[in-house]
């Protein structure tokens, strides 16, 4: 990316406060009018270990976490050892000169060593050991030519008026760091214009929860699991005011079954988890397909298999989502490509779930769920479409068939409490009324036929789901040397790689991006890929789970596959390098 940007990195042990310092800087960048993208690399420990956060900001929308930083804050020695050599030419390293040494580290040319007694300075303002981070933050703010007043306003938002003394102490600490840089070399002169136009800085999970709230979600049942937990945290904070029941339950079995119960009873309901929890939900979610109850299940992926890398990203659970539950039942799988789509697709999922009376899975991943990104705003004009309800009239009580066989596969839904429309929702195969055909009727010719009709009815919903969702988006030049196929959160780094290839190598590359994974849009895919010279699928897993789906649905096999399963997100440079390699 040739545009002007700032890339900032801070690292330390878990508990050292690098995440909250980075968050503050990200907020300051946002309020200064920049677009922001953050990536947090952390480990599955509460104290110790090594974690770091990268904040990248620019005047134009930022598509990925970026690569080498210009400014590094070291909160401990290992951070210096690991990251200092990556700081760019003419960049700067901020560190506590009392505790950290840069001796012997191979630094790029012109890197400024900004070592001063952060801890000692910080103690003038507070006994809190983390105050030294704020001194360092002030130093970075000066290097980036940002305004201390913006820092103050950001602190005021974070801590609020109730803790004025904390805000004051932090402002003084930041000013001390700012002043030190002012007197020792000043700005890095990155030349970024700070328009001051504040946008929104939000994580994917917050956008998912906000989208759910906007769509009228009234019930969330969830069990804590990284990286889905912050959906529950945000929703719990806002639940009482907005009339949402947020229930932390005993396990994911309870979560999906409660959510389905709530959906059956007539409220928009949701659950959220990661792959391990989703594995526990598979029987329950299939039940939703069979009893035709609406529910939205968010699957925020992390690196598997099994417990895997709990704090690392991957796109390895597509097969799990596609195959969840025994037998065939109609499902929709949506995968937001960015934070804005986290909001929009979650809201849309509630409509699809109610219109088609079946579970809808929204697939995110750690990279998208936990990263802070800038969005311009959200369109809260979210339509709420509740689908075919018996209460809307046109359905006679005495002839009411909950599972009436219809052309669309959708039957009028009665809600408990509605007089005269009582029915049984059954997970056994059932007739149009909902009564079992599994016990004394199964295998009798007439009922063999009914079983088939009920399967056909339910599975016909896939036609409607396909009609109501979009095919892939072709992005980039119409004529390209290679078409990159991606789904979900890979969009950002992939697009950045495409822009870089165009600019640096003059290579025309485009991408075919999927946000609606299932039901699969085979016709649009075939049409788009017919025009492609060469294709490469880029996804964050070992086996190419999406490529296999694409091949199964279209008979087309991508020419190349670039899979990433090391736990780290895609970097634009490695995608670009792979493209250069295959185009040889």
């Amino acid at each position, binding site marked *: 990316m040739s545009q002007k940007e700032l890339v900032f990195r801070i690292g330390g042990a878990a508990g050292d406060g690098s995440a909250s310092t980075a968050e503050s800087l990200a907020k300051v960048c*946002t309020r200064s009018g920049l677009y922001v993208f953050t990536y947090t690399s952390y480990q599955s420990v509460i104290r110790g270990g090594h974690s770091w956060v990268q904040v990248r900001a620019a005047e134009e929308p930022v598509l990925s976490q970026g690569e080498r930083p210009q400014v590094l804050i070291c909160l401990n020695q290992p951070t210096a050892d690991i990251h200092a050599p990556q700081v760019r030419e003419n960049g700067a390293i901020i560190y506590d000169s009392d505790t950290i040494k840069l001796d012997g580290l191979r630094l790029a040319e012109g890197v400024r060593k900004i070592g001063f007694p952060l801890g000692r300075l910080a103690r003038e303002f507070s006994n809190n050991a983390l105050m030294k981070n704020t001194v360092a933050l002030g130093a970075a703010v000066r290097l980036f030519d940002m305004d201390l007043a913006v820092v103050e306003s950001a602190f005021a*938002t974070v801590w609020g008026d109730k803790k004025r003394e904390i805000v004051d102490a932090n402002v003084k600490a930041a000013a001390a760091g700012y002043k030190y840089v002012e007197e020792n070399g000043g700005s890095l002169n990155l030349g970024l214009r700070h328009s001051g136009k*504040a946008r*929104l*800085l*939000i994580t994917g999970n*917050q956008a998912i929860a*906000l989208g759910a*709230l*906007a*769509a009228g979600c*009234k*019930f969330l*049942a969830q069990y804590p699991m990284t990286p889905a937990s912050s959906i529950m945290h945000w929703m719990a904070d*806002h*639940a*009482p005011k*907005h*009339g*949402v*029941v947020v*229930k932390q*339950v*005993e396990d994911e*079995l*309870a979560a999906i*079954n*409660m*959510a*389905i*119960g*709530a*959906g*059956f*009873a*007539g409220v*928009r*309901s949701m659950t959220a988890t990661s792959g391990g929890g989703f594995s526990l939900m598979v029987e*329950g979610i299939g*039940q939703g397909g069979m*009893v035709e109850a609406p529910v939205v299940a968010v699957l925020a992926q992390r690196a598997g298999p099994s417990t895997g890398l709990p704090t690392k990203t991957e796109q390895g659970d597509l097969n799990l989502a596609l195959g969840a539950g025994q037998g065939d039942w109609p499902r929709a799988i949506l995968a937001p490509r960015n934070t804005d789509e986290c909001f929009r697709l979650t809201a849309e999922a509630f409509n699809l779930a109610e219109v088609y009376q079946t579970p809808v899975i929204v697939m995110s991943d750690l990279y998208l769920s936990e990263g802070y990104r800038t969005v311009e705003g*959200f369109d*809260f004009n*979210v339509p*709420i479409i509740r689908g075919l309800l018996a209460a809307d009239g046109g359905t006679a009580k005495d002839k009411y068939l909950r599972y009436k066989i219809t052309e669309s596969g959708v039957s009028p839904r009665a*809600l*408990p*409490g509605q*007089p*005269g429309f*009582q*029915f*049984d*929702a*059954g*997970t056994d195969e059932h007739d149009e009324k*909902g009564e*079992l055909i599994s*016990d*004394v009727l199964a295998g009798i010719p007439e009922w063999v036929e009914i079983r088939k009709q009920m399967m056909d009815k339910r599975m016909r919903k896939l036609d409607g789901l396909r009609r109501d969702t979009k095919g892939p988006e072709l992005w980039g030049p119409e004529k390209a040397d290679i078409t990159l196929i991606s789904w979900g959160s890979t969009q950002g780094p992939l697009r950045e790689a495409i822009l870089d290839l165009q600019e640096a190598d003059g290579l025309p590359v485009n991408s075919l991006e999927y946000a609606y994974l299932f039901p699969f849009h085979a016709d649009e895919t075939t049409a788009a890929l017919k025009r492609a010279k060469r294709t490469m699928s880029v996804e964050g897993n070992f086996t190419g789970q999406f490529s296999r789906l694409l091949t199964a649905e279209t008979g087309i096999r991508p020419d190349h596959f670039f899979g990433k399963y090391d736990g780290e997100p895609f970097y634009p440079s490695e995608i670009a390098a792979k493209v250069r390699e295959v185009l040889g």
Partner: protein
Amino acid sequence: MSDGKTIELQEYKSEIKPTWCPGCGDFAVLSGLQKALQVLQIEPWNIVIVSGIGCSSNIPHFLSSYGFHSIHGRAVPVASGIKLANSDLTVIAAGGDGDGYGIGVGHFIHAMRRNLDITYIVMDNQIYGLTTGQASPTSEKGMVTKSTPEGVIENPVNPLTLALASGATYIARGFSGDAKGLGDLFARGIKHKGFSLIDVLSPCVTYNKINTYDWFRQRVYSLEKEGHNPSDYLAAVARADEWPNLDQKRDRIGLGVFYERNDIPTYEDLEPALKKGPLVRQPLGLANPEELLEEFR
């Protein structure tokens, strides 16, 4: 009551004929439940019966209320979700001992400590019937089944002491040989505000040849007649421990209400989002979305 008319017993019955074996204890549970609902005059459309999987879990089909025949072990969470979505409904979970005390025991414990206002009826026959006769969590030590040809070597779950330890606020035991008593226990449990457990000794005439109607008749007694005070927690524990227990004493099996507390708030009482009434009746969407964005600026 709908338009002031008395709801007749017939109105709680569905057209579906039960598929249970002749003599199955679950017939008495079904008729006792219909009777209790009629006594309480709850409109069938305001009732949801949620079951799991097993012979007894077919029960929703035999009532004219709303029903949800769920998956194995998950009746209680499904019922909990329904109750939280529409707290005006009378929600009854029902199923067998395998369903509730085996595969679903985690939910059972947590539902009790939540004290949701739902009634849980467990038709306890101490055997897996629908899968043709394997040991269940309440099978007695030594019992020979298809899966335990040398006899069960585990101790049985005592659902009543488990419920006492877990915070249920209405705990009772009934017996399918006493249909009248069952109706009374169900009615009291449904009326009770909070989590009600009614464990019903419901003999399996096909696969359990030990714990038969006669076997129970020789051992059961009425707690009420012996002057048991259901508000006395420790007395309830002592009565509940009479059977089953580690010493394998099996001469006295109490029937009736072991424990009842009416002064403990329900989950619905304490849930802030329900202060404005049932969720199903609350408006959807956001009245003032922009104010939610302040924290992201």
